Every structure is written in C-alpha cells, then in structure tokens.
C-alpha cells in the first residue's frame, strides 16, 4: 500500500533516501521551490520499488493539506515499526490530534460524549476536553447539523457525527442548502469547515433503514467534498485532512470496517482529500472501488492472479471530486475498467464514475465500462438475501474474466 506524504522541505529528505526506496518525478530543486511537495513512499516492500513509471506527475495539483512533520521522520517511515491499532482507534487518534492542535475543533453528535460514541470513535474525548467540546446532542439530526453549520459560519470547526449515515437523511436540507451552498450564496463571505462523518453501508443484517449508502444522495450537492476511508491508515489521514480542510467534508466510514487492524506510522501524517490510492498495480484491467468493496476486490484479485490475470486495483477514496488523474493514467495503461461499488445501481457513485470516465477517456477504452453495484432494492434482513444484494468476490472474478476476453 502506498503512503502519500506532503512535506515542506522534503527536498532534503528526498536526497537522503536511497533511490530504491522511493520514486519521484521532480528534481530536488523543483521540490524545494514549491511550497508543499509531494512524494510517494512505498511501505509494503513490493519488489517493483523505484522502477515504476507510475509516479505522480509534476503537473499534479498540490492541495493545501497541511504538511506533516516531514524531513527525517518521513525517511524512516518504511523502516520504523509504528503502532498497531483498529480502524476506529485510528479515527480517534486523528480526531484527538486535531483537537489538541486547534481549540476550535469540537465534536457533536448523539452519544459521542459520555457514552464514548456508538462505535467508540470518540471514547474518552469528553473526559479529556469537556462536555461542551464533545457535545452529546439530543436525537435531533436536522437541528444539530444546522447548529454545527451555524457554529462553523463563525469560525469553529465542528465534526458532526451521524450515528448511522442513514439518519443524516433527516438533515439533508441543512447539508445541501446550508452546508454546501452558503459559501457560494454569500459570495464567499462564509466558510463552512465542518466534517460530517458516520458509518454507513451494508452491515450484518441491520435491516433496510440502517444499511443505506448516502454517498449516492449527497454526490450532487455542490460545494461539499466526499471521502471514504477503508483502512486504519487512510482513516486517520483522511480524518485529519477533513478537519483541516476549509470546505465541508463528508467522511464515509463503513460499519463493518471498524475493527480492521493495521500498523500505522507513529509520526504525524495528513493525506490528501482528493487523491485515490493505488492498492495493487497491474496491467490487464483497472478495478475502481472504495470502502468495504476494496476487500471484496482484493479477495477476488487473489483468485484472478491465480488464474493469470493482473488487475490494477485503485481505491478511489475521494468520491467527490473523483481523482481523474490517477484513474485516467490507469485507464490509459490497461484500457479496461471495472467499477465495484456498494451503492445501488441507479444514481450511485459508480454511475457517475462511469459517466466521468466515458466523457474523458473514451478513446482509451477497449471495452465498455462494467459497473458492479448493489441491487436497486432495500437491503433485506435475511442473511442470504443480503449477500445477494451486495457484490461478492465471485462476481468480480467473473466480470474481469468477461471483460478481458
């Protein structure tokens, strides 16, 4: 898994690293001339280190995600052990670091304070920061989302937690009209630096109303950014980036991913909100996915590799806007695209992604884009039915085989 760092003065670090350990497409002088520089360090020890042309181009946009403590700390990431934790703990770590760093960051949601959060993401924070900063709200999504947005208009940076993303449907008006559009309708006077986060997606037999994928509903709201985390590493990085962003960000977590364990670096890092993650480079087909479906895809990838295919797996992470740069480079290489998502077929992220890729990269495609998504049905309670509504690894294998004929 590639880790992406942004560091000021990384030029020094770049020079210090042995060439095999990293790659970059910019000369050190170019790097140091820029305000924020970007380079990629592989931490998974893959044999193709240092020789891949798959580097981030010089033309890539540098977003203003704040620099992590770069230099020496970055160089030793690959070798430093870091610490192991679960995804919800990674989210909490990111949240805590940001609350320490900026006193304007506060949390509000149902049972986030004394109870510690229904998925333990905010455990212990209320004792540390107090009841006003980690606010237990009544069950009133519409108004506490509105309250968070109003507070953000004055300069606070609230993180609004929906206990389940589905409950945020009640706050749709506030999210769409006030959160997304106030910056525009006020002619730029107000910034709304909120983070709206919560678990969504299909769980284990939670029923139709608690298995909703709100990314498909929110995706056309102008003015918001959407990201989906899938590993403890990117959960922490995206949480920090979302909090530091001046735009409203909706961070989609997944109910079934909270107990994933991974080793993450000790030193501080902030990921870019608009970048996709290259999970597994390949040559034959580009598989685009996000959140929980990433794991189904990786499972399918094992089978595919045994069968002789070489899929390239990209976790798109940024649902709005799409990282068309990474995706485009991949399409130009493999010429075949498979999208695997958990949204429903109609109007989901996959549908928009299909349209975006077709519009921009039609000349590079050798076959129509295949989009595997959940069925257009309410998620049933029965376990077998629920399995059939969500994309399974076997279906991904079949789709790749058909695509690569």
């Amino acid at each position, binding site marked *: 898994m590639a880790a992406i760092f942004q560091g000021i003065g990384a030029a020094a670090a770049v020079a210090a690293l042995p060439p095999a350990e990293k790659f970059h497409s910019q000369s050190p002088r170019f790097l140091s001339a820029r305000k924020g520089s970007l380079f990629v360090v592989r931490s998974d020890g893959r044999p193709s280190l240092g020789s891949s042309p798959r580097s981030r181009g010089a033309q890539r*946009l540098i*977003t*203003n995600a704040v620099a992590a403590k770069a230099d020496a700390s970055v160089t030793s990431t690959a070798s430093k052990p870091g610490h192991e934790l679960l995804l919800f703990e990674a989210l909490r770590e990111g949240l805590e670091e940001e609350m320490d760093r900026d006193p304007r960051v*506060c949390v509000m949601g149902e049972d986030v304070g004394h109870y510690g959060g229904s998925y333990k993401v905010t455990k212990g924070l209320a004792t540390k920061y107090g009841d*006003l*900063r980690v*606010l237990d*709200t*009544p069950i*009133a999504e*519409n*108004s*506490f*989302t*509105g*309250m*968070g*947005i*109003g*507070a*953000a*208009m*004055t*300069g*606070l940076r609230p993180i609004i937690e929906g206990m389940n993303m589905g409950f945020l449907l009640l706050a749709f*008006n*506030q999210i769409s*009209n*006030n959160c997304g559009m*106030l*910056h*525009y*309708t*006020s*002619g*730029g*006077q*107000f*910034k709304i630096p909120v983070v709206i986060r919560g678990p969504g997606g299909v769980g284990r037999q939670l029923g139709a109303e608690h298995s909703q994928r709100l990314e498909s509903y929110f995706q056309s709201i*102008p*003015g918001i*950014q959407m990201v989906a985390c899938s590993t403890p590493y990117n959960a922490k990085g995206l949480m920090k980036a979302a909090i530091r962003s*001046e*735009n409203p960000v909706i961070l989609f977590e997944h109910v079934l991913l909270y107990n994933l364990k991974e080793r993450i670096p000790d030193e501080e890092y902030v990921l870019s909100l*608009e970048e996709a993650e290259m999970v597994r480079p390949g040559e034959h087909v580009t598989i685009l996915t996000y959140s929980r479906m990433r794991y189904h895809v990786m499972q399918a990838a094992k089978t595919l590799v045994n069968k002789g295919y070489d899929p390239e797996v990209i976790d798109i992470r940024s649902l709005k*806007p799409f990282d068309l740069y990474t995706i485009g480079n991949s399409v130009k290489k493999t010429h075949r695209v498979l999208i695997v998502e958990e949204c429903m077929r109609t109007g989901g992220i996959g549908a928009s992604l299909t349209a975006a890729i077709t519009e921009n990269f039609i000349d590079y495609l050798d076959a129509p884009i295949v989009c595997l998504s959940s069925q257009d049905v309410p998620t049933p309670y029965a376990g077998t039915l629920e399995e059939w509504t969500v994309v399974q690894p076997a279906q991904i294998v079949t789709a790749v085989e058909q695509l690569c004929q």
Partner: protein
Amino acid sequence: MALSTSFRSNLIKPLTALTALSSTQHLRRPFSSSADDSTVLTIETSVPFVGHKCEPPSRNVETTPKELLGFFHDMALMRRMEIASDSLYKSKLIRGFCHLYDGQEAVAIGMEAAITKKDCIITAYRDHCIYLGRGGTLVECFSELMGRQAGCSKGKGGSMHFYKKDSGFYGGHGIVGAQVPLGCGLAFAQKYSKDETVTFAMYGDGAANQGQLFEALNMAALLDLPAILVCENNHYGMGTAEWRAAKSPAYYKRGDYVPGLKVDGMDALAVKQACRFAKEHALKNGPIILEMDTYRYHGHSMSDPGSTYRTRDEISGVRQERDPIERIRKLILSHELSTEAELKSIEKKIRSEVDDAIAQAKESSMPEPSELFTNVYVKGFGIEVAGADRKEVRGVLP
C-alpha cells in the same frame, strides 16, 4: 402616551428653552441639533408587554431625540427601499422571489438600537431591511436584487441571500425554519468562545410550526445558549392565517419551559426595550422567545397580491392605526423635536438617495461568466468544470 415630568423639567433649561415655543414653524433649527443629545425622553409604550415565565420589562422606554430622529430616518429609508424594490420587480429588473418588509421596519430598527454589531442576527428571506440595519448600503442591496456584481453576495445570492459577515449578519435563508438551528449554532459558538454576545434568530409565524425550531430550542435550553428566538408574527404564513396553521398562536408561550415575551412589533421603542431585556436575560439564563406582533403591507412576496386572504380594509386599518413610521413621526412632532416640513424634507432626501442608489446599481455589470465557478469551494483543487452545453463556458474551479 404620557409625557414624563423629567421632560417638562428639561424644557426650563436655557439650552432647550427655544424648543418650548409653540410657534415652531419658523425656527431654523437643524434637525439633528447637538443640543438635544443630552435630553432623555421617557416614552411609555402604548401596549404593555406580556410575559411567559418571566417578569416583563417596564413599559417606560428611555430614548433621546437623536435616537428618535434616527429611527424616523432609518425606517423611512427602509420603507422607501422596499417600495422602490416593488417597482423594480414590476419592471422585471428584480426576478424570482422578492419578499418585502414594509410594515415590519420597527422590528429591525428597534433591535439594532438595543444591540451591537458583535451580536449576531440571522433571519429568513425577508432580509433586505435587516441587512440595511446591520450596516449594509443601498447600492449593495439593489445590486444584489438585480443580480449585479456590486451586490453583497456578488449577485450570486439574490433577494433571499443577503449576508454581512463583518457586522454579524448571517443571512438570508430560503428554507423556512432552517435558519433557527443555524442561529443556535451561532449562539453555541458565542458560548464556546465566551464572547458575551447574543444571537437573535428570527423567524416568522409560519416557521413557528417547524419541528427543527423546537429541536433547536431544546438544545439551546439544555446548553444555556445565548440565543434569542424572535418570532416576527405578521399573522400570515403566506396565504394561511395564523389561526389556521397553529393550534396555539401564542408563539411566545410555545417555548414551554423557555420564557417568552409578547411585544408590540410596530412600536420601535417597545422592540428596543424587549431586545435589551432579552439580551440581558440570554446572557444570564439562556434562551428566550420574543414574539413581535407586527404586520406586512405587501403580500408574502411579489407574486402574492396579499388581498386574497385578507381584506383591504384590514391592511389600510393597520396602516392608519399602527404604522411604525407614523408613530415615530407623531412622537417627534408632539415632543417638538422637529417640524412637519423638516420631516418631509428628510423623506424627500431619502427618496432621492434611493433613486441614486438604484441608478448606481443599474450601472453595475452582471457577474463575469467565470464567476459561475468561483466560491464553490474554498481553496479548491482546480477541477475543470463546464457550463450547461459543455462547450461554451469552461472554467477551472479556483
């Protein structure tokens, strides 16, 4: 309206002795004479306050001649602006929705008199006059209404989206009731930063039936937020009279555990007293509801004639008996703070000021096509976007 004895004693003072002369017509005194600034007038409001779970404030309001003349000027300006907007709308220079505030000016003026620019005001779509009261200029108002660059939201907001961040005016919202949770958020931030300021979250009698209002009120009361919910009760939620929409039209009582105060919203001095009282209360004890009994002469918006659900007699009756500007005019004349002719000349000056502002606003240009894509995100990431046909207008999100 009773003249207090303190005023009578002031008449004897040599500085103000001249004003005691009955034949005031030929006095050439400038209307904002500095000699009057020290005078304190105590006026009794014509309608008493009614309290719910609180002691209502006194009916006697202190004011100065300067303040009264200021009220007259500002309210006349607001009235003139709204009438001018009416004709601009009819000549199709203002499009879409235009909700006019004439008749309700006393609420905006009285509130401003009681608070500072550090206190926040948030309201719904009937926001032109509140924007003006918060320090906005006529040119910015008219430009925004006509969708020009010089508008307060660069022409991208329109009538329902006036904002002025530097003087604590948070808009300007189109969805009924959605501004009240935002207002509680402003109050939350004020409490968080320990500012000792308050937020006035304004809404109408129609919005008073929104659930999010009660949700927000519950949270404000739980957290003791310095939020003052102001219900501008003009008795009609568009075409529906209050008794047809609310089982209990006593909006000041609907807070239940939250204290409330019913105020004569056509009396600027009563509004000022109530807002001052509310600010003190909110800083100590948390939220309070103010119900301003007011009236709008126009319909709900320019597309509503305003006479299908109420009689013309009712409208003209209110205009004769309770008009806020006439009330202040009578006060000024009876206390001999100015003359009929001077007040008329103020109105004339205002009329020409408004005409000038309209002319200036008309000269301002429409926004550039590239403005379509600005202010969508803050410090964006350069996405390429295109206009509707994807050929003509192309831009990069800044």
